[in-house]
């Protein structure tokens, strides 16, 4: 570490501390080799409240921010036992017991929230107050004060408590009616302060979505500042850049779960995949190195050195890899008519892992502002260069030179990319291969954000406001007219929405151009970078829909007619949801596949939806005859009367063993296998029976979310279980922790049970029962 710059032998600039004032009389740093951490006080402005940043030593990722009593102003050293930092400060010597800040064993009081984002999802069916919780803890393990606050003037959000002592499980209620006019996602920063803590806690982002039923897409929360997305052409993955944590997040496009993360340099800006689809290159705006990762192993490879500056936007085409650079020391041999060029474009030699600026771009001057953006055509035959000044240029791989440069607009920003080899989009302008403006797409739906191609059509996303809905539309590549525009659940990211006030010295570099649309390798899904993370659309997002019709409702366990509060129910009909979709994670959403369901005006948490079936959890609070309504973008179904019983025990038939499916979920604990004819019940067996419809529990379980594990949610009315004429003692009856609407009954099989190949196993609760025929062997 030299000054505010992390160097490696060479010397090569690995990373620099963002926003450091550069006054070497202020601030200081110390290297904790024991914990592999840096303690950095690098003032941004003279006279500011002193803050020490605890950073990772490879890329200066900020882990924590610690309040200092004085600004460090000189030499800073770590004691030999790595337990204390001594620093010359404005008032003398500052002694920092850094051992107490150890991420694992440190006892210093540090208040943090366990969640980065708290998601509140309202929709056309759900206008009730949405409760969620945030957990405030002391990383030092103690009990320390804290205060929570919302921006002044915030309405519709009510905190269960605004102050308290750690650990605390704080209720946050959001009234979606306050936000429903937004029809998108409102983000609110929940600030945490503590008088007794030594750290400055990071705020929590409250994400409140109030989509309308005619808005499409599945929301997947991804915390942090996500600035770029790239789909893998052959693997079922997308790669996202999380700039505030210097990470590439790898998500499986089938499960929509994170499968890996890779550490980039400081302040990553853009990504590109090499021609052979083997490596991922990441441009970092606070490092002279572009990171390289092996996509088979997710391991970092030798990086690419940019001796003159910081790489930003990178693109790969056949035979050429190009990068825009924030140049610090420009090469002196690039001269244009206006004089020496200060910020040229660079070409990467991947084999030698170096980058150099060509003297010219074909016949054009190599003068490319650092906020420009690069994109390749899907065929990788051409490269588009877009500048915020409105100038665009094109590199032709076939002739290995820049063949066109033009300025069709006075300024540019927003979406940039290629529909194909002949048509490009920059902002709302469609450019032909000569980079003339061939058409200007409508701007009624706002600023463009993402561009792509699917099934012979172009795709474009736009939005009017970050908190509003987004729009996705196809573009006819012959007429150059957009069509089949559909609202999306939340707005795609814009450069304006990504530009947020910096938190400490966490780097932020937002280009005026955005890449926020990726089509999965199987061409079945469109993944958008949106306000709260990802919005996933089906490739047929614009398929026509019909008004839903409900024909029946049965329990979701054995398909019987009995349904009960808190149980899982299967709504049957046709035209229910425009597309099939399953929920990802908990809590369950109340809108899925662009459909939602209410029972007695309560929105149901949804497991999965299709045109003919919707699997959902019923409210704990309703019994009797209640109206059931399904909504989708085409309209609202006629009310269907659902009869909710007090109890309706029903054993799931979801077991699979060998080539058998549909087995009842009765498990012998002895061999952890389903009971069936070849795995009969024996005396002294303990059976676990998984079922639904056992109604209320104590304590009450959250609606649509996982059941608690401590304490366990026990059924308020204990069922009786009989096997033939034998009564089976019930050892436990309650909800399965972490599951929604799934109950478990554990019973013991006594010695006296009679053997038979068909013996009735009956579960009875109140006046309602279910019976299953099982084989019993005795002895």
């Amino acid at each position, binding site marked *: 570490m030299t000054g505010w710059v992390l160097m490696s032998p060479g010397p090569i600039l690995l990373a620099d501390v963002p926003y450091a004032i550069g006054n070497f009389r202020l601030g200081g740093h110390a290297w904790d080799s024991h914990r592999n951490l840096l303690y950095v006080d690098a003032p941004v402005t003279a006279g500011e409240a002193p803050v020490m940043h605890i950073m990772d030593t490879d890329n200066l990722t900020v882990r924590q921010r610690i309040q200092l009593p004085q600004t460090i102003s000189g030499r800073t050293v770590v004691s030999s036992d790595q337990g204390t930092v001594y620093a010359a400060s404005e008032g003398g010597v500052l002694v920092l017991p850094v051992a107490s800040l150890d991420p694992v064993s440190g006892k210093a009081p540090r208040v943090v929230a366990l969640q980065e984002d708290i998601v509140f999802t309202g929709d056309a069916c759900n206008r009730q107050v949405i409760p969620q919780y945030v957990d405030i803890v002391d990383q030092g393990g103690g009990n320390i004060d804290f205060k929570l606050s919302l921006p002044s003037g915030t309405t519709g959000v009510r905190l269960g408590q605004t102050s308290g002592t750690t650990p605390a499980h704080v209720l946050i209620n959001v009234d979606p009616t306050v936000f429903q006019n937004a029809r998108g996602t409102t983000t609110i920063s929940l600030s945490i302060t503590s008088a007794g803590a030594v750290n400055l806690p990071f705020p929590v982002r409250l994400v409140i979505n109030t989509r309308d039923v005619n808005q499409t897409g599945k929301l997947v929360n991804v915390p942090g500042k996500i600035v770029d997305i790239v789909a893998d052409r052959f693997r079922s993955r997308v790669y996202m850049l999380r700039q505030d944590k210097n990470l590439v997040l790898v998500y499986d496009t089938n499960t929509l779960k994170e499968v890996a993360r890779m550490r980039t340099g400081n302040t990553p800006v853009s990504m590109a995949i090499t021609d052979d689809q083997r490596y991922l290159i990441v441009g970092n705006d606070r490092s002279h190195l572009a990171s390289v990762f092996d996509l088979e192993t997710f391991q970092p490879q030798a990086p690419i050195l940019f001796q003159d500056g910081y790489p930003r936007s990178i693109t790969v085409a056949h035979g050429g890899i190009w990068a825009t650079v924030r140049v610090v020391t420009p090469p002196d041999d690039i001269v244009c008519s206006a004089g020496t060029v200060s910020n040229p474009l660079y070409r990467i030699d991947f084999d030698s892992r170096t980058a150099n600026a060509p003297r010219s771009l074909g016949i054009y001057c190599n003068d490319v502002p650092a906020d420009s953006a690069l994109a390749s055509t899907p065929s990788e035959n051409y490269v588009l260069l877009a500048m915020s000044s409105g100038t665009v240029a094109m590199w032709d791989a076939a002739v290995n030179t820049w063949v066109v440069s033009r300025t069709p607009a006075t300024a540019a920003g927003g979406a940039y990319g290629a529909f194909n080899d002949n048509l490009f989009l920059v902002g709302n302008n469609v450019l032909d291969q000569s980079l003339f403006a061939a058409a200007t797409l409508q701007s009624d739906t706002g600023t463009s954000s993402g561009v792509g191609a699917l099934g012979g059509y172009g795709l474009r996303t736009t939005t009017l406001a970050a908190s509003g809905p987004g729009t996705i539309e196809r573009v006819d590549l012959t007429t150059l007219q957009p069509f089949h525009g559909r609202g999306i659940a939340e707005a795609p990211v814009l450069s304006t929405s990504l530009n947020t006030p910096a938190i400490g010295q966490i780097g932020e570099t937002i280009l005026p151009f955005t890449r926020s649309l990726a089509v999965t390798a199987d061409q079945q899904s469109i993944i958008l970078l949106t306000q709260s993370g990802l919005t996933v659309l089906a490739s047929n997002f614009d398929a026509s829909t019909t008004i839903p019709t409900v024909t029946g409702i049965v329990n979701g366990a054995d398909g019987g007619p009995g349904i009960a509060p808190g149980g899982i129910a299967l709504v049957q009909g046709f035209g229910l949801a425009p597309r099939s979709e399953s929920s990802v994670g908990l809590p369950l959403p109340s809108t899925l596949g662009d459909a939602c369901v209410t029972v007695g005006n309560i929105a149901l948490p949804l497991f999965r939806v299709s045109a003919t079936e919707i699997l959902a959890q019923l409210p704990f609070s309703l019994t009797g005859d209640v109206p059931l309504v399904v909504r989708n973008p085409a309209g609202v179904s006629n009310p269907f009367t659902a009869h909710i019983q007090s109890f309706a025990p029903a054993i799931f038939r979801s077991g699979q063993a060998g*080539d058998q499916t549909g087995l009842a979920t009765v498990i012998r604990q002895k061999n952890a*296998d389903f*009971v069936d*004819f070849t795995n009969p019940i024996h005396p002294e067996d303990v059976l676990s029976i998984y079922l639904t419809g056992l109604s209320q529990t104590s304590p009450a379980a959250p609606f649509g979310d996982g059941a608690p594990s401590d304490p366990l949610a026990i059924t308020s009315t204990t069922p009786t279980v009989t096997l033939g004429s034998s009564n089976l003692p019930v050892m436990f009856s309650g909800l399965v922790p972490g599951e929604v609407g799934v109950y478990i009954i554990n019973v013991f099989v006594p010695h006296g049970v009679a*053997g038979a190949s*068909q013996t009735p196993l009956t579960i009875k609760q109140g006046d309602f029962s279910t019976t299953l025929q099982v084989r019993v*062997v005795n002895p």
Partner: protein
Amino acid sequence: MLKKLALTALLAAGVASAQVHEWEVGAIGGYGYAPHLTVSKGSTSADTGIRHGGIVGVFAGEDMYDYWSGEIRYLYRFDDLKLSSGSIKAPNFSAHTHIVTADFLGHFRPRGSRMRPFIAFGGGAKIMVGSGIESAGQPLGNYAALTATHEILPTADVGAGIKWDFKKNLRFRVEARDYISPAPNKVIAPAPGASLGGVLNDIQGMVGFSLTW
């Protein structure tokens, strides 16, 4: 004759006799061959039964008459269960059988002869014990379930052999027996709609050594 047979049976059942006769106690072992049973379901079927396997056991007897004697014996049969249909086979399912019988032996030569061919017949019980690991979705479970339980089956046996007194008080024998019992229905339980009939033959070839006095 019937009276004699009845007396011999009493002896074979272990009832002590006051008469003085030649006694024999020995050990026996060999190998058993069990033809498969057929479990039928509709027009289809599967083969089941016990696997061929080794046998060990002990016996005791008394030569009460010149040509007739009685024996009791215990055999332990290693006989894992099997179930197959075409190329599909259920996994090996551990099992064994205890066989206890009382037999009459009719000799072709009188007492005192060194070589005594004989025929044997009798009855008793088999205790079939399934000790394998049960599992759901067992292959061919639509025909039958191999089950971890035990089952007592009445057993008849017939056989023939030869005894050889090769030394004083020492006897060697070679024999073959078929232990015949009804098909089991607990250890090998036919699935609903399936039927398992017939008899379970277990043809055993054995050799034995015994002490006589």
